[in-house]
């Protein structure tokens, strides 16, 4: 729907942020931060994904229903990951072999 036409410069700024974040995530990967590496990598990736969703996919200006669908998909992915982890984090005997 030609609901909300964004000015071109919004796209270019978002593009620049995305490139910078890519550069950032690659640099951080080469520093030894232990467990923080994964947190940083996922954090940056989530940030990049959110700005793509909000601006490139116009969700920022879309109906509340679209918001519900987007948040719903993330929530259901969370259910799958979280409840599976309730099993794997608390298994007493180690896996091996």
């Amino acid at each position, binding site marked *: 729907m030609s609901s909300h036409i964004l000015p071109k410069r919004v796209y270019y700024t978002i593009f620049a942020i995305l490139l910078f974040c890519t550069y950032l995530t690659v640099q951080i990967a080469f520093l030894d931060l232990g467990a923080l590496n994964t947190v940083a990598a996922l954090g940056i990736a989530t940030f990049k994904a959110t700005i793509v969703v909000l601006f490139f996919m116009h969700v920022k200006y879309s109906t509340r229903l679209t918001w519900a669908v987007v948040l719903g998909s993330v929530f259901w992915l969370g259910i799958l990951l979280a409840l599976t982890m309730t099993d794997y984090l608390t298994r007493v*005997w*180690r*896996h*091996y*072999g």
Partner: protein
Amino acid sequence: MAGRVDNLYFFLLAISIFFSVLIAGLIVFYAIRYRRRDPDSVGTVLHGMMALEVGWTVIPFIISMVIFVWGASVFFAISRPPDETLNIYVVGKQWMWKFQHLDGQREINELHVPVGRPVKLIMTSEDVIHDVFVPAFRVKADVIPGRYTNLWFQPTKPGRYHLFCAEYCGTRHSGMTGEVIVMEPSEFQTWLSGGAPEGSLASAGAKLFQDLACNTCHRPDAQGRGPVLEGLFGKTVQLQSGETNTVDEAYVRESILNPAAKVAAGFQPIMPTFQGLVTEEQLLELVEYVKSLQALPQVQTR
């Protein structure tokens, strides 16, 4: 144990009968009491009563929580074996059960156990997922390839009880049955001593330990390149990666099959993998052998 499961079962049966009869009775009664007498009659309007709705949401919730707590307590009892148990190893293989007592007896599809003593089965599978199910003891546990699962029961009455495979495992899944034979302790001893042809599991493990040349690196005098195994079982060891790890069946088995996964601190990951070189039975023998190695007295008598 069977008693506790039965009590929970009868409690639930009572609740189910109560609610089924209630609902079935009500709908049949209403169907008859308010049956349509003339074709155009319309039902009287009843405005929903919030109290009723909340009532029949909260009450089933409370009942289900009671059942949950009771079920959980029974499950805790089932899933945590007592400390002192008679350990028996079980290897499930496509369509047969192999049992191994610690003193070396091997049995196929039959398991002799003494009455009155808690028995713990330590189980693994050689191919697909199986499941040891003894209906009389109300116990069941899947047998998964690649790791040990365990199950415990305490028989109270001598006799012969069915043992089924309860996880579909292929063509002769229904043929993969066996029998648990519960005997008086005295009878069990005679049976035990009668059939021990090639010595205990640990002794078989010791022989294997030499054949596979494990002793070249694992020496009692700590000169070898591998850690000293005497008295190691049950202790916690420091790992290369800084974590600590208790030495139990799973750790011994993993270190044989996949040595580099959890290298002990101060040692190089040079041990070759034995994956595919040792069968499940041989693994059990080695584990028993390591368990049987007592800590040496301080003086190096060997």
